[in-house]
């Protein structure tokens, strides 16, 4: 028995270390199961399938501090590892903007590209009296306590900020009176909304696809510039006179110390993934909308997002 145990623990270590010699590594800064894990596994699989890398990409889960642990580990220990990519999303930018990574700043890594985005949505149960964003905003103006929102992120997180942005744009300024509860993920938030415990759910398109198809929830608005292909009957917030665009982009960052050539190379590889049929299928199956920005373009775009998130967070008092 002990022999078996020893052999197994050894093989577990070997599995963990396999491919560490020259293959690329993708760090998912969370436990298996979330969006970052999806990014790493999906992009890693396609990179290999379309021949952009010679060996399968090894995915490492490094959960902790909402991504902060992975961030500090990359900055402090692997600052020039050119074979390392790290999954990131809007949540990474939000947390950096809110100084949630223990003093770490966005300029300590390089954001190399995003190849898809999960459009922000606001949904209600199918039998809700609210038919549009206007109805929702009117109800909140009349009684801020009458509409409670459920979302998959903690208070101050992106799901929370999204709904506050919408309300501000709709002319409701007392945003601290808005009821929001953070649940364990978007699906949980939908269950609570269908169950009638919360009146609306704020989240990402990917989280609601199945429930939309089964007719249990209705989307009031999608927070993109144009309607999302495949979901053409959901109006954008802009169409309803609310000028808010909020998408949860899915992308990667790399260590700061790598050469410009390697940075551009990763950008090109990502662009190739974005153009592949396999990625398009994966996006469609998961409710992602096309959103490709790579290299320097993406870096400056992220800088802009962080600056505006910081401003909003300060305004609502999440940071001083």
């Amino acid at each position, binding site marked *: 028995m002990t022999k078996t145990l020893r052999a197994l623990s050894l093989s577990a270590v070997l599995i963990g270390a396999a491919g560490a010699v020259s293959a690329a590594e993708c760090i998912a800064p969370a436990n*298996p199961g*979330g969006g970052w894990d999806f990014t790493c596994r999906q992009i890693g699989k396609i990179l290999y399938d379309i021949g952009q890398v010679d060996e399968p990409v090894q995915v490492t889960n490094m959960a902790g501090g909402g991504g902060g642990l992975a961030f500090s580990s990359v900055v402090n220990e692997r600052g020039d590892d050119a074979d390392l990519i790290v999954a990131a999303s809007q949540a990474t930018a939000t947390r950096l903007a809110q100084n949630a990574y223990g003093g770490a700043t966005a300029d300590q890594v390089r954001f190399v590209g995003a190849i898809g985005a999960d459009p922000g949505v606001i949904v209600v149960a199918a039998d809700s009296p609210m038919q549009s964003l206007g109805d929702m905003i009117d109800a909140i103006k009349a009684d801020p306590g009458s509409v409670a929102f459920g979302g998959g992120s*903690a208070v101050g997180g992106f799901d929370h900020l999204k709904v506050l942005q919408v309300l501000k744009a709709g002319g409701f300024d007392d945003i601290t009176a808005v009821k929001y509860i953070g649940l364990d993920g978007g699906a949980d938030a939908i269950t609570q909304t269908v169950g009638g*415990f919360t009146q609306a759910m704020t989240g990402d398109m990917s989280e609601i696809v199945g429930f939309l198809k089964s007719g249990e929830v209705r989307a009031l608005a999608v927070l993109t510039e144009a309607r999302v292909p495949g979901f053409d009957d959901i109006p954008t917030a802009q169409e309803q006179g609310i000028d808010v665009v909020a998408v949860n982009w899915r992308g990667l960052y790399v260590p700061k110390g790598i050469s410009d050539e390697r940075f551009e190379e990763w950008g090109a590889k990502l662009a190739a993934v974005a153009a592949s049929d396999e990625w398009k299928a994966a996006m469609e199956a998961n409710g992602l909308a096309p959103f490709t920005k790579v290299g320097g373009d993406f870096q400056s775009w992220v800088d802009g997002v962080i600056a505006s998130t910081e401003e909003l967070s300060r305004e609502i008092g999440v940071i001083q």
Partner: protein
Amino acid sequence: MEIFSNLAVGFSVLTWFTLSLAVIGCFLGTIIGALPGLGPSNGVAILIPVTFSIGLDATSALVLMTSVYYGAMYGGRISSILLNIPGDEPALMTTLDGYPMAKQGRAGDALVISGVASFVGALLATIGLMLLAPLLARVAYLFGPAEYFALYLLAFSTLGGIASNNQAKAALASCIGLGIAMIGLDNTTGMPRLTFGNLHLMDGVDFLVAIVGLFAVAEVFFFIESHGKGSSIGVKLEKVTVPVKDIVKSGWTMLRASLVGFIAGILPGAGASLGSFLAYMSEKSIAGPKGKFGTGVPRGVAAPEAGNNAAAGGALVPMLTLGVPGSGTTAVLLALLMTLNITPGPTLFTDRPDVVWGLMASLLIANFVLLAMNVPMVKIFVRVLQVPPAVLLPGVCMISFVGIFSLSGSYFDLLLMVGFGVMGYVLRKLDVPTVPIILGILLGNHMEDALRRGMVLSDGDWTYLFSSPISVGLWIAAVAGFVAPMFLRKVLQKPQAITD
């Protein structure tokens, strides 16, 4: 019958290849479950990249993963019974009667009974899943913050009588657990609590670190203290037979525990640990003091094992029908499905019947394979006890370190684990039970979140907590569960005196 034709579709995807995958998965799962620190969720997570690198298709990957999942649920009991160290968190309750049984020289009996109980629990849950999954998904819509809070309260209200004769010490232990659960990012405000600015503590304390520390590492300290003589590991070993009489006697226990576990599994967030806990506590209160739960009785190992395996099957209900993972392992399985471009949710049963029914068929097969594998293998497992403690314990210790390091790859967790070991040593010296600490860590966060969400929704109105028939029912059960043992003990002691 539609079910049978659906199942036929499911079985049609099975080939000799997938069948052998199921056998391999069950074997790996059993080992992974038995190793302290390596639970079902990291077991499945470790194997995900393997399925990709050998290019398994969706069905085969699912067969392998669910076999590992069910296998680990079976395997967790082995180290609970033989070493008093839970192999994974749902097997925690099995230590309470399993280890005393082993000390009485009935390790083989305990392993066989718990193996059969695991089979009954998993089989009933799989059948329940097949017949009722889409219907049961609705149950999740009935549980809001108030109902969840009352459910967790029910669990804590019955904690007093657990694993200790001193209710105050059990209460102290659960408070320590609840305190540890407070560490980390506060979900309601997004602010870090008790982290001392340490990023490693931002996500809180992983319960696996606590379990391995409090049980495995503390055991090693005891061993060192006694210079290898007085270690509690020294259990007796007798001939292994199939204890038919005990299995038959535990029949009703297994059925009831399966039902309790299955229901706990269906509720997202409750999961297998709560399932085995509630199953054990309800059986304990049904049996009363006459049942002698906690002293090494067959029903005491049958209940938690039937309960946690049923909960493992139950947890697949919200995962498949709502996309809400009910436990750590189902969260990993969910990730696997998404990577295979299968999105669980309300439409999965109609969109991808091949996947759903292939999964059901593989669950059934895994379960039979596991029974066939586990009962004869008991003879091999009990050999562990023939290994001298001086060899066994350092081995267990080493595996614990590897297992915990594989969780996050951080040395910090290892230090924390040793810290928990010291704490476990001190607490056991003071006769404070450690099981309630783990339950506090496991359930404390969920309970607090439920309460605070309820308070946000109701503007701080406490009556919200009693606002639905379900929550009122759970409150009554919780109060009864807390008060009843105090009175029942006196009432039940009389007839016992007569029969004695």
